[in-house]
């Protein structure tokens, strides 16, 4: 245990990552995304205009602020391709004339859908065109003495009845179970490799085997050490997540008009933790078993890496919309925990599922521990040459 605590790799993966990851994800990511979006929005959009003389009033309206800058190019298509401009606007020769006569006209925006900036330019341009269109409509209605409100006979009100905490849980419910499941695995990974293949490599496994301690006790000791590491990771991840969720509130609010709160109930956190315990035991024993086959640390890493995918894929179940917990899924390891963790974070408690998942994961873990124990009794595995 002490030996494990002094392993830098273990320290980083068990303690540092969960503590740092959540604040970084919540603050960092949202901050970066928002800065990027603001920056892009604030940037001057370079456009080319074809048939400028046919829409001079709109163009002067468009170029009033700093938002758009007109660039003169010979061929707008190649200019767009070379990223000299973000978008191009084309007006027909009778654009202003038709509008003035109360007729309909058209305008074409050329953009590159595979370029984010070009797409943003397209949105901005069509927004400006709509504003211009609105002003034309308003003008026409005024000429005919008609109230503008006639265009909107029904006012549509939308009210979100989901409590704030559910909104928070909804967003967190997708990511957090995934993150915690992965972290429970990562937290157990290095100690598991170190205590088996690592010890084989350094010869300490043989030293331990000649002490009057039974194989079962050795296996148990190693299992408990790995489990402790995994549980510490889970606790730290849960605490860090709750704290950064609380602090992250203000920032996330800016994303949408809906108020979002990240208040997670203490009961949810407790249940999440309880659900994670048997899963951590399952990971710990599975990782020990797999890495016990390896002769060296490196070999064990290559055995364990594919396991990571086995964990990541089912943990991503919450990203698929419309999948709900049911009796069948409650028996699928990892998937069941991820789904239940989301429900719990949302404040929904299906006790029969939670109980079933706890028991089934507990059984999987027991089986896996049994396998680990058997492996520790096999000479071929311990002394593989």
């Amino acid at each position: 245990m002490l030996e494990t605590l002094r392993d830098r790799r273990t320290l980083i993966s068990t303690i540092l990552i969960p503590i740092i990851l959540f604040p970084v994800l919540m603050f960092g990511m949202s901050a970066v995304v928002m800065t990027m979006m603001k920056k892009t929005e604030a940037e001057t959009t370079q456009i080319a205009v074809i048939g400028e003389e046919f829409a001079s009033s709109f163009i002067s309206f468009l170029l009033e602020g700093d938002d758009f800058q007109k660039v003169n190019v010979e061929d707008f298509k190649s200019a767009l391709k070379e990223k000299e401009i973000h978008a191009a606007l084309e007006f027909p020769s009778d654009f202003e004339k038709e509008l003035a006569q109360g007729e309909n006209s058209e305008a074409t925006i050329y953009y590159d859908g595979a370029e984010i900036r070009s797409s943003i330019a397209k949105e901005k341009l069509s927004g400006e065109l709509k504003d211009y269109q609105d002003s034309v409509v308003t003008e026409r209605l005024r000429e005919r003495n008609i109230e503008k409100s006639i265009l909107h006979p029904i006012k549509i009100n939308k009210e979100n009845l989901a409590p704030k905490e559910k909104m928070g849980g909804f967003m967190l419910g997708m990511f957090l179970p995934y993150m915690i499941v992965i972290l429970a695995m990562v937290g157990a990974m290095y100690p598991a490799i170190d205590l088996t293949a690592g010890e084989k490599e350094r010869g300490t496994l043989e030293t331990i085997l000649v002490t009057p301690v039974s194989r079962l006790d050795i296996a148990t000791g190693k299992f408990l050490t790995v489990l402790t590491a995994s549980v510490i990771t889970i606790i730290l991840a849960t605490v860090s997540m709750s704290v950064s969720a609380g602090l992250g509130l203000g920032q996330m609010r800016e994303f949408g008009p809906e108020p979002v709160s990240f208040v997670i109930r203490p009961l949810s956190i407790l249940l999440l933790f309880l659900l994670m315990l048997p899963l951590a035991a399952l990971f710990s024993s599975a990782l020990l078993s797999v890495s016990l086959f390896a002769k060296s640390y490196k070999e064990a890493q290559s055995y364990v890496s594919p396991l990571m995918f086995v964990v990541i894929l089912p943990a991503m179940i919450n990203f698929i919309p419309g999948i709900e917990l049911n009796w069948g899924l409650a028996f699928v390891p990892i998937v069941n925990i991820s789904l239940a963790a989301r429900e719990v974070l949302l404040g929904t408690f299906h006790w029969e599922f939670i109980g079933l998942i706890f028991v089934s994961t507990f059984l999987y873990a027991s089986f896996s521990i049994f396998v680990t124990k058997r492996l520790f009794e096999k000479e071929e595995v311990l002394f593989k040459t």
Partner: protein
Amino acid sequence: MIVTKNLTKIFQDKKRGEIRAVDSVNIECKPGRVFGLLGLNGAGKTSLMRVLSTILKPTSGTARVAGCDIINEPEKVKEKIGFLSSDTGLYHRLTAEETVSYFGRLNGIGEDKLKNRVDEIFERFDMNEFRKRRVDKLSTGMKQKISIARTFINDPEVLILDEPTIGLDVVTSRGIIQFIRESKQANECILFSTHVMWEAQKLCDDIAIIHQGKILEVGTLDELRARTGLNDLDDIFVKIVGE
């Protein structure tokens, strides 16, 4: 005291099939004597010693080590032996003192007696100088001392030493040889394997030559000399193994 009876260990290898690493071995190591096990690499020395220290289970036959049966009482055997080999490593991230205390606890020494026992060991092997330092920061010689201290923590009746001097410098190997002599004086039973002939010639009271899992000859150096008509142990060894 070590007595083996038709001790056999067979490994199943996918490529090479059945390997008789230890083949019907009958030896007797007495207290106060050093029993040398001589053999080429892969002769079965390590397997035999692992079976005797109960890390491996014999395929057939049995042995009594310090009065306990290796099959039925493996934990008791481990309490009474000290096992040291070039493969038994130390935990690098523990200090010298933590290492010795840890193995003391694993050997069932109670916390009340542990402190005294550790002090005694550190005194005996002159290790107080690096007591609080981490193992990975120590020289090979210091590490070897800790390994010996670790082997001695349970005051063993029988010492099983598998090529303990392999890969060590002259000074460190001399330390180990000195320690084997002292243990002999203390009336311990020592099983010692090597492929360095002069070490065996200097140290061993009884010598067994093991080849392909089988004990080809056992006797004192003088008996072996008489049987082969040769003087140097390496000549004797080559003659016996080569035949």
